[in-house]
């Protein structure tokens, strides 16, 4: 996988012929004062799949979404739905549906009339609108709610009506801008399931904006990671864990252990000694990334038999997390690594252990210049598992 790679062609799903893909190429969006919010973005959403556009707040993902919807005009670039460019179509005539963060239902209309609003704009007669609205309400699990006032709905119901209002128009592309972020956790996960079911049943090409990495992984066929107005990497959810395309992508997905060193071929020379890594990296000054859950912790081996990629470590901190434990380990040369181990494993602070770094789970990226582009704020905290990043006290020389 390379940065901004094309989507994998086959995601193992039936693909009705009516479904079309969304393709954004070279898109640049700037606000008046010359600040570029979306910069040279290439993004593809394969027909009948759901792609999550993931990124921290302020990275430009909502701007990108609004540009696809036609609410903002790009400086350069193209947006294609199927084979046709939609750049010349104003928002009111683009074949897209958009669900906002807030439901934005029209308070003076009934639930049914809200859903029928788009059909009314197309001149669909009232009886048909009523029928279609009722069908959509059944579909989103709110049967017979058509006559209700909007003010009688709960937050989750409102967002379901908003979803129905967008979907009733049979959009070729459905755009969702963090639609569930204002709901509580339990409701959010049920809404995700509903969305997933609807998206599959109706076979709609969907772009789902979220800042929640967990949500993206759970709901999407593919993830496009957006950082600072650019697509950092695009691929299947699993790729971001097992084979992240870039250092920043790996960091965003919580690969917090970074070991600086030098790569030559499949040998990585660092403070922990010489480690074997998978082939494919570029020789020279590099950073080795390894996920906390990929580290293997075991009893110290007899000093005589030296195993490859095994480092003696001291446990310096153990945090019980219910389903697992987060451990901090001091390695040689004051390098500190974070590891995730099974909850049942008995560990004492100060215990001497052996740590194995499996060559396949170690990713090596060219070292980036530390100044300027690498602010500490860029690495978002992951909800639920704050793991202190590994640091080396030794200089990089």
């Amino acid at each position, binding site marked *: 996988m390379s940065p901004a790679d094309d989507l994998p062609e086959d995601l193992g799903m039936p693909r009705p012929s009516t479904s079309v893909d969304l393709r954004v190429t070279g898109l640049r969006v700037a606000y008046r004062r010359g600040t570029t919010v979306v910069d040279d973005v290439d993004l593809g959403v394969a027909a009948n799949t759901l792609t999550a556009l993931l990124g921290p707040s302020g990275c430009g993902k909502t701007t990108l979404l609004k540009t696809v919807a036609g609410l903002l005009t790009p400086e350069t670039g193209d947006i294609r739905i199927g084979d046709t460019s939609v750049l010349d179509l104003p928002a009111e005539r*683009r074949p897209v549906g958009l669900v906002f963060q807030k439901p934005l239902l029209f308070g003076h209309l009934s639930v049914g009339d809200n859903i029928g*609003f788009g059909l009314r704009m197309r001149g669909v007669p009232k009886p048909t609108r009523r029928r279609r609205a009722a069908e959509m309400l059944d579909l989103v699990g709110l049967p017979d709610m058509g006559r209700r006032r909007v003010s009688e709905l709960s937050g989750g119901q409102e967002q379901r009506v908003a979803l129905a209002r967008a979907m009733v*128009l049979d959009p070729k592309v459905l755009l969702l801008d963090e639609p569930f972020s204002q709901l509580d956790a339990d409701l959010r996960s049920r809404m995700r399931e509903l969305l997933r079911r609807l998206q599959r049943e109706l076979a709609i090409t969907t772009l789902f904006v979220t800042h929640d990495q967990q949500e993206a992984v759970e709901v999407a066929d593919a993830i496009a990671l957006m950082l600072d107005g650019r697509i950092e990497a695009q691929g299947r959810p699993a790729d971001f864990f097992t084979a992240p395309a870039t250092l920043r992508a790996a960091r965003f997905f919580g690969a917090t252990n970074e070991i600086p060193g030098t790569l030559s071929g499949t040998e990585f020379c660092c403070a922990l000694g010489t480690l074997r890594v998978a082939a494919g990296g570029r020789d020279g000054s590099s950073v080795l990334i390894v996920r906390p859950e990929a580290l293997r912790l075991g009893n110290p081996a007899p000093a005589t038999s030296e195993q490859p990629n095994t480092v003696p470590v001291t446990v310096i901190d153990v945090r019980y997390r219910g389903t697992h434990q987060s451990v901090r380990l001091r390695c040689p040369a004051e390098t500190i690594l974070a590891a995730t181990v099974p909850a049942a494993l008995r560990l004492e602070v100060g215990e001497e252990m052996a740590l194995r770094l499996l060559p396949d789970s170690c990713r090596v990226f060219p070292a980036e210049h530390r100044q300027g582009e690498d602010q500490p704020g860029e690495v978002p905290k992951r909800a639920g598992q704050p793991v202190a990043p590994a640091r080396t006290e030794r200089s990089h020389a």
Partner: protein
Amino acid sequence: MRRAVGSGLLATGLLLPFIPLLLWAVAGDFRYPAVVPELSGRGLGMIADPAVLDALVTSLTIAGVVAVLAAVIGAGAGRALGLYTFRGRRLVQFLLLAPAIVPTLAVTLGIQVFFIRYGLADSVAGVVLVQLIPTVPYVSLVMASAFANFDVESEDAARVLGAGPLRRLILVTVPAVGPGLVVAALFAFLISWSEYILTLLIGGGVVRTLPLLLFAEIGSADLPAAAALSLVIALPPLLLVALTSRLLTGGTPVAVGMRRL
């Protein structure tokens, strides 16, 4: 029970001033120590005077046009103030409110010269224009708070659903701020309806509204005539408020909106 007493007191307080007015309106001779006046149709007969009917029409026209214009202008200003933050927002806010703070007489004396120069003096159009000065600030204020509660993204939502600019305005924005708009227009109508000084200065006595006639009668010390005219002046606003109060209280959308203001 308590509520009934409260509303009873309120109604009495509002209606009490009308009792002497009613008495005077039907009075012929009304001197101490008489408690009830000697009845006469002269005062009420005044109402049927063509001059009064003309003034009634003029007043209704001016107040109606002022209400509509002020609502439109004020809605625009209120939208800008309620929805957006921009450079010089506070200055615009102050300038909009200034006419409500600075005595209108002072403003009008300064403006009158220009009205005369541009041929707007002594005309209904001129009076309408000058009455926008005291009305627009109130409308802007009411509309600013109405728009502050309006999510402007609703317009985007409607747009993506296929609504063009006009339909977004009519089907989304106006219904959402409608309650505020009704109240604001009502304010403007009432301010215009009882305006005296501006009408006199700019209308130059040519444009005769009901308050102008009333002041003339008061000046001539014809109390029955003045009382009858006062009733004519008081009735339309009362009717208007009575009609809209059904909209403004209870469970109607307007009432819900009002409570949000």
